[in-house]
C-alpha cells in the first residue's frame, strides 16, 4: 500500500475547479517531484493535503497511511506524520521560535501517546538540527520568522521538518527566493532525512532544486491533473522544452 494515495481528486476554490481528477501514489522511501506551470494547481494540492480551510474536495479521496485525511483536522494530520513546508512561511509576532518548536513537537508527541521531551533533551535536539542548517541561536530566540530573510524562513521550515520527523513531507516551492548557497543547505537538510520509511513530495516550478534533491519520480501537473509521469530525466526535459506542450494539450 502506498503511503499517500490520491484518487480522482477534484477541488473547487471559490466556485472554480482547480484540481480536476488528480491521481497520485507515493510509496514510503520515494521522492516525487511535481512540476508544472503557474496556476496548474500545485499549491492547491499542498494546502489541501495540510488541511487549510476552504480547500475541500468536491470528489475523490486522499488516503494517508490508509486513512482518509478528510476526517482529520490539520493538527491531527501533522501528528499522523504529514508535513507541509510552506511556500510563504508566516510571521508570528510575539511567539519565540523555540516556544513554537517545542509546543509543536510536544503536541504531536502527546497525540501519538509519546512522552513530552524534557527541556535539556529538546534544546540538545534543536541545536543539533539548527547547526546543520546554519540557523544560529539568535534566530531561535526571535519571534517565528519575524524579521527573517526569505532564505532564513525557508531554512526555518526545514528545521521544523527535521525536528518533527514526518512520514511524508510536502515541500511547496521551497526553492523559490533562494540563492544557490541557501538552496544547497535546504537540499542537504532534505537529503539527510531521506529514509526507506519516509517520502517526499517536492513541488517546484524549476528543475534546479532537483539537481540537489534527486527525485525517484517526476510528475507534470497541468490544468489540475497529472498529465505525464517519468523518471528524473523528465525534469531535465521540462527545463529544456518548457511546459508549453502540456499547457496546449486539449483536455479530453
Amino acid at each position, binding site marked *: 500500500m502506498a503511503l499517500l494515495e490520491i484518487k480522482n481528486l477534484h477541488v473547487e476554490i471559490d466556485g472554480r475547479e482547480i484540481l480536476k481528477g488528480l491521481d497520485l501514489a507515493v510509496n514510503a522511501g520515494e521522492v516525487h517531484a511535481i512540476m508544472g506551470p503557474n496556476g496548474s494547481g500545485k499549491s492547491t494540492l499542498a494546502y489541501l493535503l*495540510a488541511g487549510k*480551510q476552504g480547500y475541500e474536495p468536491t470528489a475523490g479521496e486522499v488516503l494517508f497511511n490508509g486513512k482518509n485525511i478528510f476526517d482529520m483536522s490539520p493538527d491531527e494530520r501533522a501528528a499522523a506524520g504529514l508535513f507541509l513546508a*510552506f511556500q510563504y512561511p508566516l510571521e*508570528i509576532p510575539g*511567539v519565540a521560535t523555540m516556544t513554537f518548536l517545542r509546543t509543536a513537537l510536544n*503536541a504531536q508527541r502527546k497525540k501519538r501517546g509519546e512522552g513530552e521531551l524534557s527541556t535539556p533533551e529538546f534544546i540538545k535536539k534543536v541545536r543539533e538540527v539548527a547547526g546543520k542548517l546554519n540557523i544560529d541561536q539568535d534566530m531561535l530566540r526571535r519571534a517565528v520568522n519575524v524579521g527573517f530573510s526569505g532564505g532564513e524562513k525557508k531554512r526555518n521550515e526545514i528545521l521544523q521538518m527535521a525536528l518533527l520527523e514526518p512520514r511524508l513531507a510536502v515541500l511547496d516551492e521551497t526553492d523559490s527566493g533562494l540563492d544557490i548557497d541557501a538552496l544547497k543547505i535546504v537540499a542537504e537538510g532534505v537529503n539527510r532525512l531521506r529514509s526507506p520509511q519516509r517520502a517526499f513530495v517536492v513541488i517546484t516550478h524549476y528543475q534546479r532544486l532537483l539537481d540537489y534533491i534527486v527525485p525517484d519520480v517526476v510528475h507534470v501537473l497541468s490544468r489540475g491533473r497529472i498529465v505525464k509521469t517519468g523518471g528524473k530525466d523528465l525534469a531535465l526535459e521540462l527545463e529544456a522544452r518548457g511546459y508549453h506542450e502540456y499547457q496546449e494539450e486539449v483536455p479530453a
Partner: protein
Amino acid sequence: MNAEVSTIKTAAETALANAFSHARTRLPGDGVIGAQRKAAFDVFAKEGLPHRRVEEWKYTDLRALMRDAKPLASPPDAAAKARAKTAGKLLGDVETRRLVFVDGAFVPELSDLAGQEAGLSVGSLADALAGGDPMVAAHLGKVAPAGDVAVALNTALMGDGAVIRVAVGATIERPLHLLFVAAEKPAATFTRSLVVVGAGARVMLIESHEGPPGSDYQVNAAVELSVGERAHVDHVKIIAEGASALHVSTLAAVVGAKARFNAFTFTMGGAVVRNQMFLNFDGEETLAGIRGATLIKGHQHADTTLVANHIARGCQSREVFKSVLDGEAHGVFQGRIIVRHGAQKTDAKMMTQALLLSDRAEADNKPELEIFADDVQCGHGATAGALDDELKFYLMARGIPAAEAEALLIQAFLGEAIEGIEHAGLREALMDQVAAWLKARAS
C-alpha cells in the same frame, strides 16, 4: 416653550447623597479637609452620575450601569481579615512589601510594616487625616482632576488609603504592594492613596484589587502620585475584582523632569470596570511607558480612559493597550494625548488593539490627539479584529491543536504589552494569569 430640565435623581444618586450626609461628620480630617469633601460632593450633586451624553463617559454610562449605591463599608471584622490572608495570590512568588486594605480600611496586622528601607515611609490615610499630616494637606487633590465625577465622589467619601513617601535619592528594592480586598458583604469603598516620590528615587508600586465572585460590591479607588525629577517609578495595577463587582479607579500622576515613569494596568475581573489615568508630564525629557492588557468575557465591561498631558518639552511617551474580548464582553479604550503649547519636541505614540474572540464581543477604541505645539512627533493607531486564521492554520499544520494555537496567539498578542513591565517576576505572574484565563476558556 421652555421646559425646565432637572436631573432626575436615580436610586444610586440618592443613596450616595444620603451616604455623604450621614457620613460626613465621622469621615476623617479637619475642617479644611471637610470643606474639600463638601466642594467635591457639590461637583457630584451638580453633575450626577456620569452618563453616555458626557463625552468622557460615552461608552460607560455609570448612571445606567450603577443600579444602586451600596452602603459605605463598615470596618472589617475578624472573619473578613482572616479571609484577606489568602489574598494576593495572583502575584505568584513576587517578593513585595504588602499594605493590605480590607473593605477599604488599612489593616496593619496583615501588612509588612517591619524593617522599612531607609527613605521609605508608609502609613494610612485615615491616620494621616486624623493627625493632620501636612503632607496630605499639601498633596491631596493637587493631581487628580477635581471636575471628574468619579474623583469628586472619591474625595467626598474617602475613608482610608495609603500614604507613601519615598525620600530624595532613596532606592526601594522591594516593590510596594497595595492590596485591596473586598469582604463578603456587598459594600462601597472609597480609598484614596497619596504617593510622593522624591527626586532621583526609585520605587515600584503594585496596586491590586480583588474580592469574592458572588458579591456586587463597589470600589472607587484613587491614587495621586507625584514623581520627582529624575525619579524612576513603576506603577502596576491589577484589577481582578469578583465577577459581580463595580470598579472605578483613577491614577493621577504628575511627573517631574528627566524621570522615568511606567504604568501598566492588567484588567481581568469585575462586572463593570472603569480604569482612568490622568498623567501630567510636567518636567522636561521624561520617558514614559503607559501600557495595559485587558482580558474579559461573558458580560464584562471594561473601560480604560487615559489622558496623557504633555506640558513640558522633550518628553517621550509610549501608550500600548491591548484587549482580548470573548463572549459578549465590551471593551472600551479612550486615549487622549494632549501636547501643550510649550511641549515642543514631544514624542508620543499611542496604539490600541482589540482582539475579538466572539462575534458578540464589542470593542470601542477612541484615540485622540490634541496638539498645540508645532515641533512634535505624535501618532496613534487602533485596530480591532478576530484571530488571524492564516496564523492559526500555520500552527495547526505543525501539530498544535486549535485551542492551543489560539492560546499561543492570544498570549503573544498580550505579551507585546506585558513585556513592557520591567519586573521579570511580575511579567511571569501576569502571563500565568493569562494562561489560566485561557485554560478556563478552553475547558
